[in-house]
Structures are given as structure tokens and as C-alpha cells.
């Protein structure tokens, strides 16, 4: 006996801005037909703090702590993009030791950020154990940051010309210990997650982002590499000492959530390789170049570009010769990655929304600035 189809309407469901799985204050207006997402309109700006306007009212060194708070999960990459731009304007040459230490700091930030990604991604998919494990593994890195810079999260470690502080005694030993400590834990996550049937069903084939669309949208980082595009600023536009180090650029050809997850898991292992090489080759010397006390770059403009854990983080600094910049602009990778989200959500179910949003790993601090 057949039943006449009940006429239905589409529904608009509001997700956020306060929501445990939106990774910050993001609001998604989902247009639903039953459980299927027809369209998604992200509403951002709930964390807009006016950093670019504040930047015009601060001196160059004063802007540095604000950069930490943009992508707060990996402060060093924001610091570096800004500091690179100012160094280009001033023509400052950074000492070798500082370059290696900067790379160590960047890669430790990358691991910490990816661990947080794994922890929250798994937590969103209800694998709460991995949330606790991931944050537990992240704590030794926080200890190392605290040992070195005094702060766990927003380190503000970089300065124009190098770094604020040299590494303390015991840091190298701790870092080497961590390089041995982490890989078995990552294997444990692989056993818990990557082979888990539920995890695989929820991430494989979900949230497809074809490579041409990803490039057209300006996506970068693991979101782009998870779609098979082998573009990594550390390799394609090297900075610091990345051109002298040996590491692989990981891509995944599946273009789905699992691909982006796999890329980040593998990148953590590559980061450990990079850290070990830097520790082996660390030269003696200064950690900061001779820079004038008052930072007044000559008039002009420069662009610093860094491969942050989220992608291509850029900082455009325009100077008019004074102590304060005329313009500071931060190009946030999450802004562009998030713009691709509606495309990735269409046709999937509500339960997939959380998985897809988690897999692009956004940080609202840099989206909203």
C-alpha cells in the first residue's frame, strides 16, 4: 500500500555562535530539507576585535603581542609573518642560530596545533578519549614554551631581527625527549582512530573539496593538501632554513575529511623530523641581530608569508617612515578555508556538518581579526 508523500518545507537551523563544535564563535545558518543540508551561510565577525585598526595606533614592537592572538593555536607563525615583513622593510639579516631556533619554535607550534586539531576533531565525533590524550600530549610542548618564553600559549617569542630569548639549559634535552615520546602516541591514535570503523564511516568520502575549487577559493595548508595539491610554502617559497632541511610534503588524494586528517597526522611526524635536524645543526651565535632601539622602517611595503598549521598566513605592512605603520593587514588562511565551507557542506547531512567543519580546522581569532 503506497502512502502519499507528505509535503515538506525547508527549515533554517541556526548553529552557533555559542556551540561546542564550532571551534569558536562561528554561526552557521543551515538550510535543511529534513536532515540534508541544502545550503549553509556562515556568519562571522563575532570575534572581530579591530586588530588592523589597533595596529595603526601602536608602534611596531607593540603590534607583536596582537599577532599572537590571531591564530592563537600557533602564535609563532603569526609572529613570524609580521616580523618577516618588518625585517624586509628594514633590510635586517637574521643570525643563523635565530633561524634554526625559529624553525624549532614553528614546528613545535605546528605539532601543538595539530594535536589540538586531532583532540577536538575526535571529540566532535564523540571519541572523547582522544580529546584527553591529545591534550595530554600537548602539555610537554606547553612546558617547553614556558621554559623558553615564559608563556604557554601566546608566546610573543619573535622580535624584529631574531628572537626575544635564547633557549635555556635543558631545553635541547627536553625537545629530544619529546621527539622520542610522541611517535608511539601517534601510533596509538592511529590504532584508536584511523582504523576505527565508526570514525572511517564518518570521515571517508565526506565533505569532498575538488582541487580546482580549493585553489580557486584560495584554500591553503592541509585543507588544500588534503585535496591532492602539493603546495607548501616551506617548500615553494622557503623562508628561514627550510630549504636546507629534509622533510616530506604530505598530500592526500581523497579530498575528504579523512584526507585532511591524514595529512595533519603525517605532518606531525614530519615536524618531529625537522625539529631533530635543527637540534643537530643548531649553531652557536646571537639570537637577535643588531636592530635600532626604535623600530622605524623606511617608507615602503613588504609582505611576510608563513606556512602556519592552517595554511598560508600573510602579513602586509605598509610603512610611512614613522614609528607606527600606515597599514597592517593579516591574510588569514582560515578566512579563505572557511569561505569554501558552503561548497563542502551541500548535500551532506547534519551529522556530517560537524565532521566537515572540524576537518578544515579553523580558528576564529584569525578569521575575524
Amino acid at each position, binding site marked *: 500500500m503506497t502512502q502519499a508523500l507528505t509535503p515538506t518545507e525547508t527549515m533554517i537551523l541556526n548553529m552557533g555562535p555559542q556551540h561546542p563544535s564550532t571551534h569558536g564563535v562561528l554561526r552557521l545558518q543551515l538550510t535543511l530539507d529534513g536532515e540534508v543540508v541544502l545550503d549553509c551561510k556562515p556568519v562571522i565577525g563575532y570575534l572581530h576585535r579591530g586588530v588592523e585598526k589597533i595596529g595603526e595606533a601602536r608602534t611596531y614592537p607593540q603590534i607583536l603581542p596582537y599577532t599572537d592572538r590571531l591564530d592563537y593555536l600557533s602564535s609563532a607563525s603569526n609572529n613570524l609573518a609580521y616580523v618577516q615583513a618588518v625585517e624586509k622593510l628594514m633590510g635586517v639579516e637574521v643570525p643563523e642560530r635565530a633561524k634554526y631556533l625559529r624553525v624549532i619554535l614553528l614546528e613545535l607550534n605546528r605539532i601543538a596545533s595539530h594535536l589540538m586539531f586531532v583532540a577536538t576533531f575526535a571529540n566532535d565525533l564523540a571519541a572523547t578519549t582522544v580529546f584527553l590524550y591529545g*591534550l595530554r600530549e600537548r602539555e610537554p610542548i606547553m612546558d617547553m614554551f614556558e621554559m623558553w618564553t615564559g608563556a604557554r600559549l601566546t608566546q610573543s617569542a619573535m622580535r624584529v631581527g631574531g628572537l626575544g630569548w635564547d633557549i635555556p639549559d635543558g631545553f635541547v634535552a627536553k625537545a629530544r625527549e619529546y621527539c622520542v615520546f610522541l611517535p608511539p602516541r601517534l601510533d596509538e591514535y592511529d590504532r584508536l582512530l584511523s582504523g576505527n570503523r565508526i570514525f572511517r564511516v564518518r570521515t571517508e568520502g565526506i565533505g569532498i573539496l575538488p582541487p580546482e575549487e580549493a585553489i580557486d577559493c584560495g584554500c591553503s595548508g592541509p585543507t588544500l593538501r588534503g585535496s591532492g595539491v602539493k603546495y607548501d610554502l616551506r617548500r615553494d617559497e622557503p623562508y628561514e632554513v627550510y630549504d636546507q632541511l629534509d622533510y616530506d610534503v604530505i598530500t592526500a588524494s581523497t579530498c575528504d575529511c579523512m584526507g585532511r586528517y591524514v595529512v595533519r597526522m603525517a605532518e606531525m611526524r614530519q615536524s618531529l623530523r625537522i625539529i631533530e635536524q635543527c637540534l643537530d645543526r643548531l649553531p652557536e651565535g646571537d639570537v637577535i641581530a643588531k636592530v635600532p632601539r626604535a623600530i622605524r622602517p623606511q617608507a615602503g611595503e613588504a609582505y611576510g608569508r608563513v606556512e602556519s598549521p592552517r595554511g598560508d598566513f600573510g602579513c602586509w605592512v605598509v610603512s610611512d617612515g614613522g614609528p607606527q605603520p600606515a597599514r597592517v593587514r593579516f591574510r588569514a588562511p582560515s578566512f579563505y578555508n572557511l569561505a569554501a565551507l558552503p561548497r563542502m557542506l551541500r548535500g551532506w547531512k547534519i551529522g556530517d556538518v560537524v565532521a566537515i567543519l572540524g576537518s578544515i580546522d579553523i580558528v576564529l581569532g584569525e578569521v575575524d581579526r
Partner: protein
Amino acid sequence: MARGGSQVGVALPPDVRHRGSPDPEESLTPLGRGAEVICRVPGGTILMTTVDKVLNWGRASSLWYLTYGLACCAIEMMCTAASRWDLDRFGLIYRGTPRQSDLMLVAGTVSKKMAPVLRRLWEQMADPKYVIAMGGCACEGGPFHDSYFTVQGVDQIVPVDIYIAGCPPRPEALIDGILKLQEKINRESIRRAPAAPARDA
């Protein structure tokens, strides 16, 4: 309203004993912090205490919090709730909905776009509710004190019980703030219950 603190008797099963106490008459399980025994009924395991003490003990020991994790402080809040510092041992469990929360942990900068949302969620929480302003931005604006789009302190929108300074505050600082809030709760009394806050038109 009871005058003089009404008394309540609590009967406990006979096998419940206070650890380490040799005297069977003395061996009574205390009701946790803040619930002093006022009167002991001899021979049994009944103790008398005040309504205030039991209510406060219940509220302070099981503060379910609505994380209002907005920015960087949210990460430190998550670290505090996770493996190393574990907020669960203080009775704090994360709830995603204001309907089931007692405590709003505002962690991060409140922007003018977010402010009405914050006020609405605070109003959706049932009394008694408490607010902790975590971090410089929630206390008085923090590094963004002169921004055109931030609220200079969340106490401009909701009443705050505890302010925790820091940018971001260490997990230990957050735990210290929560313990201070528990002490504050233990000083409350139903006789001096605060009037319900005026609802804005």
C-alpha cells in the same frame, strides 16, 4: 524565610564511617567542606546542620559550567578541563547548553556582535547562576581596550562574581578562581538571597 537558620537532620546508613577516626561516636562522614555538624544525635549516624550549609555545599561542589570560550582563553580553559588539570574533580562538567549550567565561564574577548548573544544565554540560565570573567579581555577589555568593536569587560553586560586576570591565565589561575567562587558560594545564605536582577526592557 526561616529565621536563625533552620536545622535539618540527615540520616546516613550505619556503615558510613569517617576515615581515620578511632571513636565510633565521632565517626561520622562530614558533608564535605562547609557543612559543619551542629548537633549529633547520640548513638546513630544522624547529624544536624543548616539548610544554608547543605545548599551551598550542593551548589559549590557541582558547578556545571557553560563554556563561553570565545578566544585564546578558551584554549587554556580546555587545557584546564583536560588531562593534566582536570576540572571534573572539582565537580565542574562542561555543558553545551545554558539550561543545564550553573556557571558561565566567559573566556575571551566579547565583541559588540557577540554581546547580545551572551546576554541572552545568561538569561537562559536558571538561578542560582554565577559568572566568572576569565582573562584580561573579559575583565576589562584586555589588550583590546581601545578597540571600536569590543566590550570593555563582560561586567558591562552581565554581573560577574569572579575576575581572573591573565592573558591567558594559567590553568592554575583558573582553578584558583573557581575555588574562590566555591568559597563565595559557601558564604551565601537563603535569608539574604539576592533579588532577581532587573530584566531589561
